[in-house]
């Protein structure tokens, strides 16, 4: 089982290295197959580990393995340690399964691109980074994976390096993530200072003894900062929509498998610390709830098909934060899994639409594509229904279980429950606005003119297969856990993270009825507004401006961070660096040159003058000696 974990971790890395070193010796197609095969190998290895761990009794399912010790200073040891426990195996399965489908889809999507090999090397690196993150057996390995995920996302978002917008988006994502990395690193430094160790267990034991102290709160806040940055929650959410500049499979990978879910994983993994800092845990849940609403509202006015899906991701991750913050860890992880399925499905289906329209992403130009792309429409519809949480698709089971947990978590939880319900309504509205705009109605003039039927070649087959597989998963993925009746997943995850709240059957029923009702209401309104057009689109200039500017977060950060920094550096450049630093160096250089010029006048080239000056000098010296004596 340990060997399987290592294979799972290292297969994508091996593919990334092989593609990079092989260079043009790999054909473009072969690089894609190699990357896909490596991630599929990871999935098989993860499955092997999963089945072998099932054979152990539930209390003995945590295995730590250290390949070698990395750092050793006094009593402080950090090694290349892997952790295999139910939580990490669960994440490994999701990451490698969804990852393999997305990388396989890319064989078709990226077919004919100039730099396919580089793309597949990055994709494999991305999956490796995420696997390292979820398998890391101590905080340092976690941080290494965390940083590598940030690096790979930077490389992939900026994959079209000839487009300035893509480069800017990549930098934005990297800087926002670096902020989270920094707060996490600070939290780890506090842990080292307090416990002298970076192992998970030492941190958990210490936090129990130090419950409620400022140090625990500080550590939890630092971890939360990292989670918020990686998962694009308030207030570090602005990088995620811009990250849509990357190719569509990259968006799918970031949203479904390898990146934004890392924050939720961190909250669940370090839950024992968060439980000793209840204030910070409430902040996490509150931030999640705020993000649900904010992202849902912004998604209503977006016109780019990928951006709508991006905002829906933010909002769904908000549900997971809400659940993890309130202590419903298993429900949070459950939603993470179903979300990975239907979000990857939505992105990949959107990729098919974009491909068929030769790269167009503006929904205003689309319309009536149901007639051209019936199977893509079906897949997209499944994804949209799952996202809205319509039974019996996967999103229904997982989202409603989080909402039911919120209902069971006291007054604060009930406030968040209401926010979550509003989010469910918004989800139905913006998702089906997208569905009706893209697929509904009569084909638009633009779609008629630019529609391009994909050729049924082998790469195209890969895209179809991936989307089909994900559609099946998005339908059945929720059936592994049905609230109140059947909960193998919660039992499996229990040793890693014991849930704090158990909703009653009545609460489950209440939450489900309300959430599904509101979701359907959202769909109905979207239908009335965008398909039947019985209701006009509500016009409110101010509201629209606020939403289109994404609640002015970019502008706020521009004013609060960017402009003062630029002002400060300009001032320093103009009034300090240029006049004082550069000025003094210039003055030294010019005066040295001037002295040199003047001294050369003395060198006449006339031997007799030299002789005279030597004689004169000797005479003066002689006279001095005589007189002084």
């Amino acid at each position, binding site marked *: 089982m340990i060997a399987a974990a290592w294979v799972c971790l290292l297969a994508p890395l091996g593919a990334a290295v092989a593609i990079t070193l092989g260079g043009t010796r790999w054909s473009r197609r072969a690089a894609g197959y190699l990357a896909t095969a490596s991630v599929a190998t990871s999935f098989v290895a993860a499955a092997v580990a999963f089945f072998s761990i099932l054979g152990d009794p539930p209390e003995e399912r945590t295995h730590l393995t250290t390949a070698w010790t990395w750092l050793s200073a006094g009593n402080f040891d950090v090694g290349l340690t892997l952790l295999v426990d139910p939580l990490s195996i669960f994440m490994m399965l999701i990451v490698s399964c969804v990852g393999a489908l997305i990388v396989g889809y890319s064989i078709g999507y990226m077919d004919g691109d100039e730099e396919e090999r580089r793309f597949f090397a990055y994709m494999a690196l991305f999956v490796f980074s995420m696997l390292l993150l979820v398998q890391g057996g101590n905080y340092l390995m976690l941080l290494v994976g965390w940083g590598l995920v940030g690096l790979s996302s930077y490389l992939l978002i900026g994959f079209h390096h000839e487009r300035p917008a893509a480069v800017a988006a990549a930098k934005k994502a990297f800087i926002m993530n670096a902020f989270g990395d920094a707060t996490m690193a600070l939290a780890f430094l506090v842990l080292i200072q307090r416990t002298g160790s970076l192992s998970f267990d030492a941190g958990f034991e210490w936090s129990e003894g130090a419950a409620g102290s400022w140090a625990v709160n500080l550590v939890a806040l630092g971890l939360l900062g990292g989670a918020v940055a990686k998962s694009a929650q308030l207030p570090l959410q602005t990088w995620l929509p811009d990250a849509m500049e990357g190719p569509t499979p990259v968006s799918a990978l970031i949203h479904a498998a390898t990146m934004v879910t890392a924050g939720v994983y961190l909250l669940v993994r370090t839950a024992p610390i968060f439980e000793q800092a209840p204030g910070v845990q409430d902040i996490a849940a509150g931030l999640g709830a705020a993000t649900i609403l904010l992202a849902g509202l912004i998604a209503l006015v977006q016109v780019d098909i990928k951006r709508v899906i991006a905002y829906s991701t933010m909002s769904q991750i908000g549900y997971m934060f809400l659940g993890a913050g309130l202590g419903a860890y298993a429900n949070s992880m459950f939603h993470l899994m179903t979300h990975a399925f239907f979000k990857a499905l939505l992105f990949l289906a959107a990729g098919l639409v974009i491909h068929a329209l030769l790269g167009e992403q503006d929904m205003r130009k689309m319309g009536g594509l149901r007639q051209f792309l019936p199977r893509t429409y079906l897949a997209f519809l499944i994804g949209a229904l799952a996202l809205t949480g319509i039974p019996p698709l996967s999103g229904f089971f997982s989202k409603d279980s989080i909402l039911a947990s919120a209902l069971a978590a006291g007054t604060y939880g009930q406030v968040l429950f209401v926010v979550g319900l509003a989010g469910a309504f918004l989800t139905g509205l913006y998702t089906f606005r997208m569905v009706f705009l893209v697929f509904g109605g009569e084909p638009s003039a633009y779609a008629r003119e630019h529609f391009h039927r994909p050729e049924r070649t082998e790469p195209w087959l890969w895209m179809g297969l991936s989307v089909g597989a994900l559609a099946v998963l998005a339908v059945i993925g929720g059936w592994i856990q049905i609230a109140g009746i059947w909960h193998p997943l919660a039992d499996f995850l229990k040793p890693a993270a014991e849930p704090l709240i158990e909703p009653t059957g009545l609460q489950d029923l209440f939450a489900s009825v309300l959430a599904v009702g509101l979701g359907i209401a959202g769909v109905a309104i979207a239908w009335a507004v965008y398909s039947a057009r019985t209701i006009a689109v509500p016009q409110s200039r101010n509201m629209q401006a606020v939403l289109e500017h994404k609640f002015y977060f970019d502008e706020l950060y521009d004013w609060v961070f960017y402009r003062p920094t630029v002002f400060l550096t300009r001032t320093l450049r103009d009034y300090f660096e240029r006049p004082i630093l550069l000025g003094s160096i210039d003055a030294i250089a010019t005066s040295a040159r001037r002295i040199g010029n003047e*001294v*050369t*006048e*003395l*060198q*006449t*080239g*006339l*031997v*007799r003058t030299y*002789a*005279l000056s030597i*004689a004169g000098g000797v005479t003066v010296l002689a006279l001095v000696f005589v007189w002084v004596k």
Partner: protein
Amino acid sequence: MGPALTWYLAISAFLFAIGALGVMLRRSPLIVLLSLEIMLNGANLALITFSRHHGELDGQIFALAVMAVAAAEVVVGLGLIVAVHRRRLDLDVDKLSTLRG
């Protein structure tokens, strides 16, 4: 005893001064070399004088060393003069001033 020490030294200084003036005033490199030799010999005379006066051989040995150096220097100097002459340049130290700053 011959003439007093002062006389030897006076002649030595006189020779040195003549040589120095020659170096500084004459423009022909040949004469400059000759004047240099006169200066060296003035110095040699002073060395030998003091050697006699103190009854020690150091000064005389030093004078021999000076002569050897002078001979070597003349070889180099005359070689330079021949080289300059071969290039059909004027034998005038004031015109050989290419190395001015």
